[in-house]
């Protein structure tokens, strides 16, 4: 097996007529002004390719970690059919994040592959913004 890709986005949808996936607002970082927060909407999307022909059902395990602490762990059933590909689209609402740092989504198919993606949750609090906006002193300017 191999992972074609794994990423997080705000939303994703599967076209009813074409069965193609569209991914909207890919998340490469998440600016947050106060902690703790509930990240309102995150969709984990991954496409996994089997190296075997035929139908098979496997059980994946998705773990979400924020700053190395486990936020959620859940079983994900994955179906492979004759064309060897399988998609996983998981919508999350209200992922709790207590502090800035990496938010990691790791989908593991035991003894096969791991599809992993990480983005940084960045603190952009007002205090930091004021510090950035403060002009340098005369001493610093020399």
């Amino acid at each position, binding site marked *: 097996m191999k992972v074609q890709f794994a990423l997080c986005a705000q939303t994703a949808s599967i076209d009813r007529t*074409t069965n193609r996936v569209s991914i909207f607002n890919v998340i490469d970082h998440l600016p947050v002004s106060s902690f703790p927060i509930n990240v309102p909407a995150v969709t984990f999307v991954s496409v996994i390719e089997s190296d075997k022909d035929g139908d098979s059902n496997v059980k994946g395990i998705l773990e979400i970690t924020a700053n190395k602490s486990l936020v959620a762990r859940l079983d994900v059933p994955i179906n492979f*059919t004759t*064309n060897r590909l*399988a998609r996983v689209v998981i*919508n999350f609402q*209200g*992922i709790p994040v207590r502090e800035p740092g990496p938010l990691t989504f790791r989908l593991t198919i035991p003894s096969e592959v791991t599809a992993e993606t990480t983005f940084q949750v960045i603190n952009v609090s007002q205090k930091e913004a004021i510090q950035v906006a403060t002009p340098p002193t005369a001493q610093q300017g020399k």
Partner: protein
Amino acid sequence: MDTTLNQASAAIGPYGIATPSAKEAVLVANTPTFLLDRLRKDIAVQFVLDNMGPPEIVRALQDGLATPPTDVTALVPLYVYLVALSSVDPRDQEVWKQIRSLDLSRLEWGETMRRLICADAVPTTTLEFTLSSPSKP
């Protein structure tokens, strides 16, 4: 449901499947990909999907393929049924086995369109989770 399955006159109840737009698509298409994309959006395919289940559509296509088409317009409902099958859930392997076993030799682009349809039949696991709130420090 009253489903009439005779080629050009194929109808669901009083409604014909070979709509003018579906006829136009079959007549002007220059590639199987174009025909597939065009018919997927056509009201005729949507009408079939709204009124027939996958096994019924397979049976209707089998019945339509049993006799040689009398003219070009007789092909229209057959292509409509075939394209409607592209919306079958990829995890419904029983129906996909039937789709793969259809003899499409009477349709010039039948085999190519079936390959396109099968290639797009990627199963998707879709789940929704709501997680608990963090407590304020």
